[in-house]
């Protein structure tokens, strides 16, 4: 049995006027919690659509658990559950009916009905099981979409921005739910615009930009790539101008707070504090912060923008 959950091999997608994917190749390993990030229009959704059979690659191929999504689409789609980004639903049916229909399309019968009830319970939908999906709130519709993607117990689950426009409580519920799925052996692929979400959940992260794979690394390696540390100081007193060596590190001044960006190995916290004291300021509070995925993301995508412009 293959160790690869999804394999993208030189995937190109051309539309009439755009080249949405320019030869994307990478593997998602079985059992991992994988983050697929990128700015709007980077090609994430196109890549997911091709994997799910909703779009066709212009060239290249995608395989789910070794099954080509075109040549062996039945096996590929049985292994895959996709939660679409848009809140789509069928207005004719109740929540439970829709889940049973979806299981039926997958070729599953009554044997999965207990699993469907379990999904309803775990996603806190059991009170809404007989309601028409039309009547549900946005958050509830999102949960139904997640349940729908899981009715056939797929080994690989793709969630395309599942927490967009979702309140904090539901976001936490979904985080826990997907973590539990991952712990139960499902491979999870998450696309999101909330970088703290990817940081909290994912083992490995790929960043797509302008239809190309820009980075694919372990989350921790990726976070470690950023050579900066952030330092916030609260100052009081009546000091003078800061020495030039400190001034060049200042990112922002917010009232009494000074935000600085220090490069590891070059700029030292001790020197900075000393310089500020020498200028006559009193330091009342100190905060340091490691770089977040957001900093890295912005840096990487900005880098490629300036490269593209050059």
């Amino acid at each position: 049995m293959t160790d690869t959950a999804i394999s993208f091999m030189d995937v190109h997608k051309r539309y009439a006027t755009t080249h949405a994917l320019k030869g994307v190749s990478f593997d998602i390993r079985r059992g991992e919690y994988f983050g697929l990030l990128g700015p709007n229009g980077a090609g994430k959704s196109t890549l997911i659509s091709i994997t799910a059979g909703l779009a066709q690659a212009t060239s290249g191929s995608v395989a789910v658990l070794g099954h080509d999504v075109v040549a062996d689409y039945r096996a590929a789609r049985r292994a895959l559950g996709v939660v679409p980004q848009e809140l789509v639903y069928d207005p004719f049916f109740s929540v439970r009916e829709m889940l049973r229909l979806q299981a039926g399309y997958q070729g599953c019968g009554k044997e999965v009905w207990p699993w469907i009830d379990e999904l309803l319970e775990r996603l806190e939908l059991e009170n809404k099981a007989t309601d028409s999906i039309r009547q549900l709130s946005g958050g509830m519709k999102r949960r139904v979409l997640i349940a729908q993607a899981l009715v056939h117990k797929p080994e690989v689950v793709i969630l395309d921005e599942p927490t967009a426009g979702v309140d904090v409580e539901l976001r936490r519920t979904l985080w826990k739910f997907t973590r539990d799925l991952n712990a139960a052996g499902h491979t999870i692929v998450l696309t999101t615009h909330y970088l703290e979400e990817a940081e909290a959940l994912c083992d490995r992260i790929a960043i797509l930009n302008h239809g190309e794979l820009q980075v694919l690394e372990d989350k921790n390696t990726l976070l470690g790539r950023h050579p900066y540390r952030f330092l916030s100081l609260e100052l009081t007193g009546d000091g003078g101008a800061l020495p030039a060596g400190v001034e060049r590190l200042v990112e922002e001044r917010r009232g009494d707070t000074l935000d600085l960006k220090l490069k590891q190995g070059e700029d030292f916290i001790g020197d900075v504090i000393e310089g500020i004291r020498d200028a006559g300021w009193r330091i009342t509070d100190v905060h340091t912060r490691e770089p977040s995925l957001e900093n890295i993301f912005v840096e990487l995508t900005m880098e490629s923008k300036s490269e593209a412009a050059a």
Partner: protein
Amino acid sequence: MNWRGCYTLFIKEVRRFYSVILQTVGAPVVTALLYMAVFGQVLAGQTIEGVRAVEFLVPGLMMMSIIQTSFANTSSSITQSKIMGNLVFLLMTPLSAFEIYLAYIVASLVRAVLVATVLYIVTQFFVHVPIHEPLLMLAMLVFSGGTLAVMGLIAGILANKFDHLAAFQNFFILPMSFLSGVFYSIHNLPAFWQHASYFNPFFYMIDGFRHGFFGVGDANPLISLAVAAAFFVVVSAIAITMLARGTKIRG
């Protein structure tokens, strides 16, 4: 073959029209009965091809309802799923092109048979229409309703909005079915229109179907059957190819 998937989609399609049955079965029956009331009155006492005019109308109106209903069922279902976005639920499943095709067409035929049966039963309170050749009648129903259901499927796949469907329905399906001998025998038409009718596939559908009831008609019933069957095969091949290629539905 994913029979269970295909059957599930069929059941879903039947439940879709059943949930609005007054609109999907009731309305076409009432429309056909109104035509019968009006034209029956106008044509009272007349005969067409040796059959009482009011009785002659019944199979024609049944087939007209079958044609319009079959087309409406598949086309509106697909278009609605496309516009609502829920077609993705189907496209992400392991259903093959043929399975999707089969489920949609058979569900559409169920609705057409329901409309035709209710219409036939209701009219029997007022007139007596025998069924001379039941096999021919059934075969014409399946091929004709099937052809229109497949055309509806194709139109639904191609249409970007309901307006496109309405245009196809009002400017093509409706006039073609109206002008195919529902209310008359083509022998009563001027020579030019009589000949033109032989190029209208809907004429064969109605004439062959009517032949199944009265045992008489304008064309050879085997030719009518062959035309309806041939059209069914051709449009089916087109629809299955479109579904397999993902034309307009898999970007």
